[in-house]
């Protein structure tokens, strides 16, 4: 992990030093490293886009999950399920196509697509975490006089945290890969490198774009897993 992280940092800091690695994949003396936009800058805006989208879908999915597990919100469960699963099954490319005429080119349509795409995992895991709690714990919390809000904050959410983190992990990893298509509608992401590679038949570009996204995805995956482990270790 640490090695992969260091390699990524070194590559982003000075992509030129790695031309030897990508040169064998170019033809007719084409450049081995994408230089139109600095790779570190694309990586940063890619990550920002993903972070904003994941934060937004986590927030909305969490609130939805909490609402539909309250006695007064239970009747909205089927509706919330439908919204989140349509969000996941509707292709992000189609979302882009629909959003561009409304929002114009840029980061907006991509954010919407990632947001919708990422709702389901956090929502379903929040639901599972909040409803699959041992009956005795719920009973004890009620019996000792915790109010519904106190039960939610002091018992239900802390106990559901590892499962919710797992949902966030799925959302983050999916969004990281999906964000690349944002470059087709002028969002600044690492997809730009891949698309440039496709258009100019430059395999080296495609590969370096994919490599950066891949390494970051693995690191995010591991990071969330470590967080979830930390959150569940205390409860044994």
């Amino acid at each position, binding site marked *: 992990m640490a090695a992969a992280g260091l390699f990524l940092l070194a590559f982003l800091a000075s992509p030129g030093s790695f031309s030897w690695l990508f040169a064998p994949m170019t033809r007719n003396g084409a450049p081995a490293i994408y230089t139109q936009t600095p790779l570190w800058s694309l990586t940063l805006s890619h990550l920002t886009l993903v972070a904003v989208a994941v934060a937004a879908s986590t927030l909305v999915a969490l609130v939805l999950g909490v609402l539909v597990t309250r006695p007064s919100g239970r009747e909205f469960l089927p509706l919330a399920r439908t919204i989140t699963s349509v969000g996941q099954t509707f292709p992000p490319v189609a979302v882009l196509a629909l959003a561009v005429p409304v929002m114009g080119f840029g980061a907006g349509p991509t954010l919407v697509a990632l947001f919708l795409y990422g709702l389901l995992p956090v929502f379903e895991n929040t639901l599972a975490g909040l409803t699959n709690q041992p009956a005795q714990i719920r009973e*004890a919390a*009620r*019996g000792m006089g*915790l109010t519904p809000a106190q039960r939610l904050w002091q018992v239900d959410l802390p106990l559901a945290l590892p499962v919710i983190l797992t949902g966030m992990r799925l959302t983050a990893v999916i969004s990281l890969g999906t964000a690349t298509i944002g470059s087709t509608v002028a969002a600044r992401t690492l997809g730009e490198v891949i698309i440039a590679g496709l258009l100019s038949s430059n395999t080296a570009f495609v590969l370096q774009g994919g490599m950066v996204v891949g390494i970051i995805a693995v690191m995010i995956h591991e990071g969330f897993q470590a967080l979830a482990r930390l959150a569940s270790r205390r*409860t044994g």
Partner: protein
Amino acid sequence: MIQIQHLTKRYDGKPVVDDVSLTVERGQIAALVGTSGSGKTTLLRMINRLVMPTSGHVLIDGQDTGGIAPHLLRRRIGYAIQGHGLFPHRTVGQNIATVPRLLRWPADEIRARVDELLTLFQLDPDAFRDRMPHELSGGQQQRIGVARALAAKPDVLLMDEPFGALDPVIRAKAQADLRQIQRQLGTTLVLVTHDMTEAILLGDQIAVMDQGRLLQYAPPAEILRAPATPFVEALIGPDMRPFHLLSLTPAFRIATEGHATGTPIPRDATLRDALAECLWSGRDALPVEGGGVVTLTALRERAAP
């Protein structure tokens, strides 16, 4: 004091607790006993309004509990359940501190109370305060569950089969400890159990329930000598009656002048223990520590109604 007046709970029109009235005096233990599904848990949970009664009233120290916000009522009533229900993400100390924190006790008072309770339950505060529940044995978890229920010094404690998950040896010790702590604190205790032996051992009064109805509410000796219905009799188990009766009285109570040989039995050993000792050691009389003897003849008299 708990007064239960004509308490009824219906689910879909079907009574699960059916017009039950009984009074538990201050500082006494009432054991609710009956077969599974007889409505014991429902009756218990109506006392702290985890279940809302269909009709009837519960008064605690004369005050109708129906007029108190349920979560505030519950903070005044201790509640311990089978399998303890400890919060797995909180330390032993934080678990015990749950209700005092809800009641906004000052932090130093809470800390002192946690240590006091751990000591009361024979757990070293320094060793246990910061442990997580999953790091404890079943018996220790159960004790923490009861300590948590007692944390805010409630006058009333409700327990639903608190010893159900313990193995027999640990259970006997837990029962004896509970009895002692309850006497020491003067807590009024309502305890649900399906085990008649436990009800006889712990109850000052026993309430026998069947299909939601209260069949008999009386002290153990009366339940044993004069069961109100064949069901009560069956629940006691006719083969156990003499032994249950003997278990209610300590040996020194029936000790008389006389002479006996062999190892003496402790003063507060029950007559049941004395009988077992007579049979096992082949003696007709046993000396009692501190003077007097218990004879087999006296035991025989005590074993019948």
